[in-house]
């Protein structure tokens, strides 16, 4: 009985004292309304990590911590992309006003913190983020010089290297801008080099990238297998 009373007294003393008790709720245990969440980690892991990965994991689309990507894409443009989405690429709109789940403030927090990952200023030879389509015929030559070693001379892919980039279904799901961004930034996390390291010592120029995107876009077909005229940007 004495032991029980003693332990009871001890427990109560712990409860009454100010020391750190695991059961005592902390400020951060408070469940904020979804629109009041301002913690970047939470916001990113709930809204972005599924497709863009979290730095450790890789996603189906470009990683948000890719320094080259962050250096060529203006911050304001990323804010627009997150707000309005990119229907042509399947990127959903996240702003409440567009049927998404994030407030403008939350989008601001996400974009600001993503740019905090940007380490380097853009390389001096970095191509422009966007540019009009170039010349298809020149693009074929650029492709042969820079991309064919992995994707095959005809772009249909090489076994054990890289898959097709001229598959109509693939081209039907991505925009010309998407093709340009990937051509510039590559997918370093998946082994696809960026514009500067495809051919050692010879970085692709902005014009070459416009040309190769035009060549890729010329392979677009509709669902019935008919060639589509390349869309002008």
């Amino acid at each position, binding site marked *: 009985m004495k032991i*029980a009373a003693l332990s009871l007294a001890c427990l109560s003393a712990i409860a009454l004292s100010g020391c750190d008790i*695991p*059961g005592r709720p902390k400020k951060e245990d408070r469940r904020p309304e979804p629109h009041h969440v301002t913690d970047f980690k939470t916001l990113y892991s709930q809204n972005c990590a599924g497709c863009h*990965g*979290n730095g450790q994991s890789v996603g*189906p689309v470009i990683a948000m911590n890719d320094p080259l990507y962050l250096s060529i894409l203006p911050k304001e443009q990323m804010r627009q992309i997150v707000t309005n989405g990119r229907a042509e690429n399947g990127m959903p709109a996240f702003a409440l006003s567009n049927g998404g789940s994030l407030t403008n403030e939350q989008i601001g927090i996400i974009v600001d913190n993503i740019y905090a990952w940007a380490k380097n200023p853009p390389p001096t030879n970095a191509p422009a983020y966007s540019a009009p389509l170039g010349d298809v015929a020149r693009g074929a030559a650029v492709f042969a010089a820079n991309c064919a070693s992995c994707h095959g001379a005809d772009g249909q892919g090489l076994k054990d290297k890289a898959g097709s980039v001229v598959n*109509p279904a*693939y081209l039907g799901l991505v925009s010309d801008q998407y093709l340009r961004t990937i051509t510039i930034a590559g997918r370093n996390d*998946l082994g696809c080099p960026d514009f500067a390291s495809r051919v050692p010592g010879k970085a692709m120029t902005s014009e070459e990238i416009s040309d190769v995107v035009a060549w890729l876009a010329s392979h677009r077909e509709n669902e019935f297998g008919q060639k589509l005229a390349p869309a002008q940007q």
Partner: protein
Amino acid sequence: MNGKALIQALNGVYEWVDKRLHVTDLFNHTAGHPIPKSSASWFYVFGSATLLCFMIQLLTGCLLALVYVPSAAEAYTTLEYLTFRQELGWFLRATHYWGSNFMVGIMLIHVTQVFLFGAYKYPREITWMSGVVLMLLTLGLAFTGQVMRFDEDAYWGLGIGAAIAGRSPMIGQQVVNFMLGGPIIASETLSRFFTLHVFVLPGSVLALVALHLRMVLTKGINEYPKPGQIVRKETYDKEYATIIKKEGIPFFPHGIWKDLVAASIVIGGILFCVLMFGPKGPLGEPNPTQIDTVPRPDFFFLWIFAIAALMPDYMETFMLLVAPPIIIGLLFILPFINNTGEKSWRRRPIAVLSVILIYLALGLLTYLGQTSPWSPDMKAWSGAETPREFVEGRSPLELQGLAVLQNKQCRNCHAIDGIGGHRGPDLADVGTRLTKDQLVRQIIQGGGNMPAYGKNLSPYETDALVAYMVSLHPKGELPARDSTIPATPAPLSVQEGEQHEAVGAH
């Protein structure tokens, strides 16, 4: 004044009081009443432990009511105030929460022990029946208490309760109005549940406990059953009187010490949980426009939650409206179905098997309720990452397929390697189970509890999605093949190559 004179004076006071209040008489008929020596057992402490929990609930409940405001507009704010700002408010809330958990848990042990020890048999039928009502009242307290914690769980829990009540034939709408104080959950609803939780149910419990204890005193506590000792209406009362006469001991102090030890263990247990785990919630605000929640009842109702989620449609009305009265009715009339005979569980295999079966079912359903694999994970589409090996080495089209898989929210129901929802099958090895054509058919037409997505996907999206899913087969395992088409040499060479790979891996 010397010591002797002091004692004499005190005795005088005691006699004066006793002559008027009959304290000695009261003591002899209650705490001092004789019990069979065999009943002063550790198995007999659960009733008093349940009562102790109830007392803790009364005390902490009164203190909580000093701060808590039972109005839909203010309840949540006062809960937050109690939890985060009021000095030791969290301790009070946690004690009330864990006290209720302990009360339901210990009460279940008590009921099980009484059932296994045959204590419900002649002549203690009313003791059992009042106990069954007490059990229902306790569960009622637990449910209404969950509503007092007026957060999103409480809100949606009430909604589900009202939906069940609304199924009553003919008078559904009236029952819902009566329960909620109107057609929707509003301040009237909370007032009603507050009244039930704070006045009606605890008052009824007190009245029933009085009856329950009165029966224990008048009909005597059940003797520790021995195999072969048969209860017969004609002889039992005499036999019990003999036991009391031969080996009866006063409950105080010979029986009560075990109850006191049990009481301190219970208090210690509650305090431990309070300090380690704290109070529950409040979770998000009870906001009907906020549908991004996964409401879940407290643990003692998880099994009902699981049944409600898992039963087939055609059984719903029966399970919700017909089965509970039958089960409660059976419990209530149990002493009349099985009034005499063996008491010892050693000679009552059906009783033991029923207990095992009921607890297994309840345990399994509670586990399922806790994990609730049937609930989609609504954040998985944008938050569930894909393990590296399911991304690397994929063609651009397959990567787009994975993007479609995320964007079209397939991940909410389908995990990849365990990450994501668990409503549908894991897709990590779907390529070994379904061929390309089968995948197209399943995605476009749905089936087997999966909706059809044909109208939500463009042909290109379907192509990409299927291309990705076909690529989902563990290294060394062949993709699914249409059995009507004989294997061509090309797949055979792939097969050989992959087999070599698999062998190499070993």
